[in-house]
């Protein structure tokens, strides 16, 4: 975990005061209300994979502005500044308890984790590498959906990543996905939902239609836990909701079951 000078914070959910160091030690889970705060890609990698096992790939892919969409370049620049990265997905190869995986981790801090050409390409390469090397793919999602600034090209990233999922499936290589807050729209409706095993962090927002869309469509009678990890578990859409404290060991067991046989 990146630990900056100790400062006071407020829990995003219960608003209780927290010390940043303590929060970091607790994997950014609020000790009072168990709220799972978002992790940066770096933090996620640090608390998931064997020490120093992560080797980043394709860090240098950058988004273009093919539609010359209003303000897109500025937004990309802002995302870069916020995350120190060129786009929303960090990908690479890593190990969990010694077992090798091809992995991609989304960083919500870069334009809300939205999927444009770079994210689509990196996810696709992550799955292709898994298929080639016959190692499990482990993907952490965090995204508001497709990146509208790339228009139809972004929509096509849904198809492109779905094609890579099909490749993985055809080759009998496992695809594991962990939904973190939020996992929405074009990402949920493509590679995320096509994973063989889907875990989700407690309380994450997981759904198809954004609040704005639902409101416009006049969606009524919304259940209390609507579009949460728990809602999705209850409706049979995901394999389990796993606390961040046991996520690593659960992933390790799953990867272990899938690794032993090949």
């Amino acid at each position, binding site marked *: 975990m990146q630990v900056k000078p100790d400062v006071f914070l407020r829990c995003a959910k219960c608003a209780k005061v927290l010390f940043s160091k303590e929060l970091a030690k607790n994997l950014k889970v609020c000790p009072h209300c168990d709220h799972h705060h978002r992790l940066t890609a770096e933090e996620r990698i640090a608390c998931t994979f064997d020490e120093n096992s992560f080797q980043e790939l394709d860090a240098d892919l950058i988004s273009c502005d093919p539609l010359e969409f209003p303000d897109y370049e500025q937004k990309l620049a802002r995302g870069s500044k916020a995350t120190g990265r060129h786009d929303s997905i960090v990908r690479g190869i890593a190990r969990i308890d010694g077992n090798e995986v091809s992995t991609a981790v989304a960083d919500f801090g870069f334009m809300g984790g939205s999927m444009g050409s770079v994210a689509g390409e990196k996810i696709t390469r992550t799955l292709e590498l898994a298929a080639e090397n016959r190692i499990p793919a482990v993907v952490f999602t965090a995204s508001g959906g497709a990146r509208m600034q790339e*228009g139809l090209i972004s929509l096509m990233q849904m198809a492109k990543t779905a*094609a890579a999922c099909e490749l993985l499936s055809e080759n009998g290589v496992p695809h594991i996905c962990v939904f973190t807050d939020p996992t929405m729209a074009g990402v949920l409706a493509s590679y995320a939902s096509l994973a063989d095993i889907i875990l989700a962090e407690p309380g994450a927002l997981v759904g198809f239609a954004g609040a*704005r*869309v639902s409101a416009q469509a006049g969606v009524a009678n919304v259940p209390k836990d609507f579009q949460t990890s728990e809602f999705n578990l209850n409706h049979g859409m995901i394999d389990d909701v796993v606390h961040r404290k046991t996520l690593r060991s659960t992933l390790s067991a799953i990867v272990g079951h899938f690794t032993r046989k090949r």
Partner: protein
Amino acid sequence: MAKTWREWEKPVLELEDVIQKLKQALPTASPEQAAQIEHEIERAERARENYLRIKYSRLGAWERTLISRAEGRPYTLDYIRAIVSDWVELHGDRRFGDDKAIIGGLGKIGETSCVIVGHQKGRDLKERKLRNFGMAKPEGYRKAIRLFDMADRFQLPVVAFIDTPAADPGVESESRGISEAIAAGMMKMFSLRVPAVAVVIGEGGSGGAIGIGAANRVLMLEHSIYSVIPPEGCAAILWRNADAGPQAAAALKLTAQDALELGLIDEIIPEAFGGAHRGPAETAQNVEQAITRHINGLASMSGEQLKLDRRTKYRNMGVFAVHGGSESLPFSTAPAQSS
């Protein structure tokens, strides 16, 4: 700017109304009156044609958005009635229900038996409700997947008609996994070892469209649109103003012409003069010819080739560059830029 097709076409619709009334008056008119009426009809028709020619020759993204949603526009079942023989509609996903917003079945186009699926909008208020305004629920995509599977096993080409504002965004649909259903629809299409042709006939509304749209060949009608988000939704998010739809439509590059230029679709099918709604039969014929041509063109490919063709097609979509570098980018249509 006009907000609906009816508003935008108002002058033409009024002219057409005038012409119709004149024609109705003709049988009961005296010979002198008749000559006068015929003259007026001729003049009005000339005006109508001029008007349409001008209006339809410089359509912006927003106008095309309006036309693509026109109430009188032919829907999937209209094309099926026009160009499909031995049609047998098949219902249900064998899991939960029969979604009326996506229809499917078996039918012949030309001499070829196909599996045909498509979004279906409703013509009148009652049917619109039945069809949920063409917004499909999970069971709609799962019905399509069931039929795709049959197509694959029985070696029938797949034809998909796309015409939806979006997938259904309701609580029910979320409960039953609308996201999974859309994703699975695409994945199933990528597994097919038969030719698949998709035609966007009206609105190609984001995930709801691509869920049955991952075909070998994707065609669009001249005045249809295909978009990652409805322009009004985009406007609401980016401009905080749903009325900025026209601006957003232009920015999103959602017309058939844009999609072709971006290399994301394969062909534009011309519509009748004044739009498909003014010449459904002629437009249907164009659609039939295009589908037949593409299915025949794909017929020489093996199952494996068809699958690879589809995978490669979408694999190559995306525009990106390498930071500071000049890696050759076969998958990119844009020049490398430095951020």
